[in-house]
Every structure is written in structure tokens, then in C-alpha cells.
């Protein structure tokens, strides 16, 4: 082959701004296996959906390690056990149940909705903070600080420590990037080191909370008295690392991708300004059209599995390309069109099955409030650079900066 494999083109940073033509190409080969020992890429909506519900697919970090993939979650390497996103039932289910008690139904059904006023307050504060400036970076001044503040309050991590933990979060997130090219081993070591550091930082907080619970999620996790009992300290730490990272590294992209997409489709920005109720449909369509998690690279199969006539042998790595499934013409009419009025919008943006996004209700609410307030308050916003510069990561894909000019700030 003279050209690079599709897989390498997808992970290649040069294609970060617009990977969608590559995903379209993937649809020609619904199960793509390009290199010995490499992953099987699955790109059609129905296949992805069925594999997300398939009990022969494992998320267990140990199985992935056996498949020869990167593994940053092993106990031996970092001292922290893998978080529940990298475990199978029954351990996954137990940890997720405990984590969910202070977060969602059935035990805390009103938790997220009760944060609505607080979230709106944070958003107003950030927008007011633009001051007299007539150009902002949506990422640094808004889409990043907003979810960070929210997850810090929810977990009970001091917001002022953000500069500290940010230095650890970056290499951890980089470790999730399946850039199959360079410096893999070094990148992984960096991620493991950072994960341990972050864990140690959180350990101090967890110790405080176990003595003096303060009602936040860290306190709830260490003192949980549900039928599953509390988590061990180590389990609390890996769960806290997971929630802290997932709580903002994905939402920042959802909000930024959202603003970018709206600026590219100004008619919807205008409609949103006049009708804030439209934001629900906009966010759902964004999760389809520009999902913040583009693919799930962490699954292996524990049996031979047949998908569309191709047998994926036991022990293989499988990548579920959610962003490609979201634009599968077999599933969505006119899939490349951004259409918030779509009624049929069962997207894969939050995944599906037992690992479906834990924070989905929070992410939805954050994005809804963020986008409707930006639309309402920025007068005549314009993109400064299209496409904007992107972050390195192919999985958690989004702009690194998003400069926007505007004429005035509405009250």
C-alpha cells in the first residue's frame, strides 16, 4: 500500500479538524482490520450498538493488556486499581452502583436538576468576566473553566487546586490517545506517573472527608452505607480520578464543538437566541454530529465474534467508532447535515449498554445552559479562524482554542 492505513489517518493529527471524510470511507468496510495485531474498527451504527450490548465484549483492562494494547490501568504499574470504566461486571456494576448513589436515581433523583441554578450562576459569572473584551477564547475563558468548576464542587475538590491537578490530567488524557505512532511507551509511563500523582493528591482529600464528611461526592463515596457497602480507599481514588477527568475533559469538547457548529450554522444560533427551548434538540444533535468522544478504543472480545460476515477472533482489540456510527447513512437520513430539528435522534454520543456515559445527565445540562447563554449574551459572534486549532487527542476530540469576535455583551 502506498497510502497510510485508514486507522493511521484517523489518529494522524493532520486530520483532526475534519475526520468525517475518513469515517465515511470506513463505512465502505464496516469491519476494518488493517494490520496484524491491530484493532478491528467497527463503524456502522447497528453493529456498534449491538457490540455495546454484547457480553462477549470486555472492557477489562487486563484483557486489553493481554491483547497487547496500551494499558495504563494495571495495579502493579500505578498502584491504583482500574476505574469502573475499565472493568467488567460484577466489579464494574458494584462500583458504578456505589458511585451513582449520590449522583442519580434512584437514590438521588433530583441531584442534577437541583444544580441548575448553581450552573447558571457559574455561566453568568464567566460571561460577565469577559468584561470589555470583544474577542474571547471560548475554550480557555468558558468551555474549560465551567465544567471544571462544576466537577470540583460536585466531588468536593478545591477549585483553586486546578493548576495543580491540570498538570496531571493532561498526560493522563494524552495516554488515552491511541496515536499508534510515536513514543507510546513513554507516553504511557507519563500517564501512569500522572495518574499516581493525581491519586495521591486526591488521597489527602479523601482522608479528610472520611473523618469529616462534607456532603460532596468524595464524602459520600467513602462513607456510603448502601447495600454494597463503601468503596475501599483505593477504589474511591480511581473512581475520583475517573470522574474528575471525565467530568470536564469531555464536556469542554461538547461545549466548544457546540459553539463552533452553531457559528458555522448561524441560523440556528439566531433561532436559539429567540427560543432557548431549542437548546435541547441542539445538544442532542451535537452529540450525534460532533460527539466529544469519537471512538471507544478500550474493548476486546473474549470469544470469536461474527460481525457482518467477518469473524473477529477471540482476544482481538475492537474500536467502536461512535462518531462514524452517528453518521451512518443506514441509520440517519442526510447524516452529514446538522439538523437540530431531527426527531429520530438516538445517537451514540454517550455510548450505550452498561458503560453508557455515567455523567450524561450532567453533561447535557451543562451544555444546554452554556450554549443557550452564549447565544443569548454574545451580540453578533463571529468565528475568527475556521477551522480552529485542535487538541492532539483523536478520542476526546475538540478545538484547543476557539477565538470568537463579537460586538457587545448583552446583559
Amino acid at each position: 500500500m502506498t497510502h497510510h492505513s485508514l486507522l493511521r489517518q484517523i489518529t494522524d493529527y493532520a486530520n483532526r479538524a475534519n475526520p468525517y471524510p475518513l469515517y465515511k470511507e470506513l463505512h465502505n468496510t464496516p469491519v476494518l482490520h488493517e494490520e496484524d495485531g491491530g484493532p478491528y474498527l467497527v463503524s456502522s451504527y447497528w453493529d456498534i450498538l449491538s457490540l455495546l450490548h454484547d457480553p462477549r465484549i470486555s472492557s477489562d483492562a487486563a484483557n486489553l493488556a493481554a491483547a497487547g494494547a496500551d494499558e495504563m490501568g494495571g495495579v502493579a504499574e500505578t498502584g491504583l486499581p482500574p476505574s469502573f470504566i475499565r472493568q467488567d461486571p460484577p466489579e464494574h456494576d458494584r462500583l458504578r452502583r456505589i458511585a451513582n448513589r449520590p449522583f442519580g436515581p434512584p437514590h438521588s433523583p433530583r441531584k442534577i436538576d437541583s444544580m441548575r441554578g448553581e450552573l447558571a450562576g457559574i455561566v453568568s459569572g464567566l460571561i460577565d468576566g469577559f468584561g470589555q473584551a470583544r474577542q474571547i477564547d471560548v475554550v480557555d475563558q468558558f468551555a474549560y473553566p465551567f465544567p471544571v468548576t462544576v466537577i470540583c464542587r460536585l466531588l468536593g475538590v478545591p477549585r483553586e487546586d486546578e493548576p495543580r491537578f491540570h498538570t496531571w490530567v493532561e498526560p493522563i488524557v494524552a495516554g488515552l490517545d491511541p496515536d499508534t505512532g510515536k513514543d507510546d511507551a513513554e507516553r504511557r509511563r507519563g500517564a501512569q506517573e500522572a495518574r499516581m500523582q493525581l491519586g495521591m493528591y486526591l488521597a489527602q482529600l479523601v482522608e479528610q472527608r472520611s473523618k469529616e464528611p462534607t456532603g460532596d461526592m468524595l464524602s459520600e463515596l467513602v462513607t456510603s452505607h448502601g447495600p454494597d457497602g463503601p468503596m475501599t480507599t483505593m477504589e474511591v481514588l480511581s473512581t475520583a480520578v475517573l470522574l474528575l477527568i471525565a467530568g470536564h475533559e469531555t464536556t469542554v469538547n461538547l461545549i466548544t464543538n457546540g459553539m463552533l457548529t452553531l457559528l458555522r450554522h448561524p441560523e440556528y444560533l439566531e433561532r436559539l437566541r429567540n427560543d432557548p427551548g431549542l437548546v435541547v434538540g441542539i445538544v442532542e444533535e451535537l452529540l450525534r454530529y460532533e460527539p466529544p468522544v469519537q471512538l471507544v478504543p478500550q474493548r476486546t472480545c473474549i470469544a470469536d465474534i461474527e460481525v457482518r460476515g467477518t469473524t473477529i477472533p477471540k482476544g482481538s482489540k475492537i474500536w467502536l467508532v461512535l462518531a462514524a456510527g452517528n453518521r451512518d447513512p443506514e441509520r440517519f437520513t442526510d447524516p452529514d447535515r446538522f439538523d437540530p430539528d431531527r426527531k429520530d435522534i438516538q445517537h451514540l454520543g454517550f455510548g450505550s449498554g452498561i458503560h453508557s456515559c455515567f455523567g450524561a445527565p450532567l453533561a447535557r445540562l451543562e451544555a444546554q445552559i452554556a450554549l443557550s447563554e452564549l447565544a443569548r449574551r454574545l451580540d453578533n459572534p463571529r468565528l475568527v479562524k475556521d477551522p480552529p486549532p485542535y487538541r492532539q487527542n483523536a478520542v476526546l476530540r475538540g478545538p484547543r482554542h476557539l477565538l470568537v469576535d463579537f460586538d457587545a455583551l448583552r446583559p
Partner: protein
Amino acid sequence: MTADDHLAWLRCEGRIVIVGASLAGLRAAETLRAEGFTGSLTMIGDEPYEPYDRPPLSKAVLLGKASARHTALPRRRDVDAKWRLGVAATGLDLSAQRVRLADEDEVEYDRLLIATGVRARPWPKEAEAQLDGVFVLRTRDDAVGLEQRLRASPRRVLVIGAGFTGSEIASACREQGIAVTVAERGGAPLVGALGGVIGAVAAVLHRENGVDLRTGVTVTALEGDPAGRVRSAHLSDGAVIETDVVVVALGATRNTEWLTGSGLGAGPRGIACDAGCRAFDFRGIVTDDVYVAGDVARSPHPLFGYQFLSLEHWGNAVSQAEVAAHNMISASADRRPHMWVPAFWSSQFGVNIKSVGVPPMGEEIMITQGSLAERRFVGVYGYQGRVIAAVSFDNTRWLDFYQRQIETAAPFPVESPTVDRRPEGRRPIPSDFPDPSLPSHGPTVTLSGYSPADRRLVFSPARR
């Protein structure tokens, strides 16, 4: 008029009558309009209410978390129908294409959809059934009455029958701290629907939640005080239960009596129809203007050996109504078969139970994920070497996979590894369904007849 002309005329100016104004009836009406039917549409319902949702009646409504008066079904679209609510249909004249109503009125149709559903099987002894405090639970009015009585701090509630409805009622009582006895003829709760292996788990759930569960017994008599209020119940083992509220949860009876003598293939087991929802007449000849959908229908299912399935499932009612409505106004080449894979859910004692396929066909069961003892598991039923059904306790998210296994006739026993497979799940064991010839409150799937020409489909008058 050619067939094409007739169809065009029907879609434009035809008269469609839907008997049964609940879930299936409403969804059919909406589908007809969505597919461009512009003729006249009449909805006939014996209850005085607009279509409402029944599943909450045995759950949130009994807990006082939702009002039975606010369970109206959300509308997909305007149906622009003439509503005849609170008036039961009492007869059908197939040759004159007319439905007779309880108020002596008659309504003519060009296409008829029968979606009269089922009603709760009443307590067989009429005098005892009349006692104050004796309930069934099927309708909004039933739920309002029962909920009020639960509010009034009864000494004890007796639930007769531990099928899904009975178990959900018992669960709602316990959640409110009300003492409850459940009397079940079979060996365990849910045995008719899910078999004895799963029934044993359900029995533990009942007992752990403080239900006084009595299995292998029947209620022989209900006794009232001089004021006509129920006071006690006698069981077949000699026990006497002091109680203020008795809920009879003995399954359902199909609402087909109004069709007696009409010439339609209707009887106590429902109305037989083909996979396209067209009703059979009593000779086994398919009609072309009478359609059936929902709980009252029995139709052959290719996935299950073309057996005629009667399904009392919410999802089935919706799916069958959509297919029936589509077929009513389509040319024969455009018609679709109703091939919905049976699925139902229940929520009781804090556990979410869901099933796909036809568990009562299962000869054996295998716990492929989780564990019975932890009450979180997926059980897979096998029939003649293939996967025929699956049930989950607090493991709903895997069931899509098993549904596909059923649809593709995947081999049983399930050999390939699955996540969370325990040693107990490596071998199939007998699923332990009770003898189907014994009376029971009934599984929610029943099998009857083998083919459209089965003699047992011949018209049989309603029992009573």
C-alpha cells in the same frame, strides 16, 4: 372500481372504526393519520376516559407517587377522530359491516380494527367478589379505589395470585409498610411466566421484603362482616387470613364476548388473526376488512414455530397496532407482518425484571451472567437446541444481545464465554415450568394452536 381505485378511495374517504380506545387503539389511529388516511375515524371505548397508560397503575399509582387521573397516554399527533367513550361495542355484523353499540346505535365501517384488550379475571364467586374491599386491578377506576383503600391503613392486604400484577401490588404494599399476604396456587411467584428456577428467586424477594408468601395454596372462600365488608379469607390448607383488602390478581380474560355469534374466529383465548393482523372468521378464512391488535389478538409468529401467540405486553400492543393500521390502508404487496419479539418488564421489590422471547417455551435455563443468589443475572432459555428467551434481573442493558440471539436462533446451551459468567452458569438446568394444563393466573405469553387451519381455532363460545 379496480383494486387500486378502491384503495385510493378508502384512504381518502373510507370509514374506519376502532373498537377499543386504549394503547393499541390510540397508536393505530395515530398511525392511520400519519400514513395519510383522511377518511372518517371513529374510536369506541367502554371506559369513559381518553386512552391512558396502565403500567403505572400497579406501581407509582399505588405508591401515591402518581395520580391515576394523570396517566393519559401522550399523543403522537392529532387523530381527528369521533370519540364514542363510555359506550361498549355489543355486536358485530360482518356482512353488513356494522358495529352495534350498547346505546343501540350502530356504526358502519369499511375497515374495522378490534383492540378490545383484556379485563381482569374476576373472583369466581360472585357474592364474595361483591364484598367491600375486594378488588381487581386493571383500570383507572380500579387503581383509584385500591389506592384509597391502601391509604386507609388496612390491617392486612391479601393478594390472590403471584403473577406480575400480584407481585407488583405486594411490592407496593410493602414499600408503604402495609402487611401483605400473597396466596399462590403454584410453587412460587412468577412460575407461569418465568418457570420455577426464576420463581424461586422471586420467592426470596417476596420473603426478604416481608411478604407473607403462601405457595401451593388456593383461596377457598372470602368472608365478610354483616355490613358486607371483607374480613377474612380461607385457604385450602385450612389457614384463615384476617384482612381488610383482597386483591384478585388471577390474570386476564379477553374481551371477545361481544363478538359471540358474529362469525369471527373469536373466543376466550382471543381473536385469531394472520401475521398481517387480519382476523380469521370461524371457518379459518381470513377476512379482509377486519383487523386485530393488542392483548386481544392471537397471531402466528415465524420465530416461534408459527405458534399463535397472545401477548399481554405493552410493546406488543404498540407494534401490532402500527402494523395493523398500516396494513388496513395498504395494497397487499405493501403489507407488513407483525414480527415483534415478545418483551415485557416489571418493577418489584426494587428489582427491574425484563424478559425477551417466549420463556414458557424454554425447556432449560442457563444463567449466563451474574448469579441467582445475588439476584442480578441474565437467564437464557433453550428450546430444542436454540435460544428461545432470556430474562434479566437488574441487568436490562444486556438484553438487546439476547434478543438478537433469539432472532437468529443461536444455539443453546450458550457455549461462548460471556462477561461475569459464574461456575453456576456453565450448565443448563431444567427451567421448571408448571404443567400448562393446570389453571394458573397465567403467563403473559400463552401458546395455543399450531396453524391457521388448526381445528381448535373454530368458533368457541365464551365460558360462563
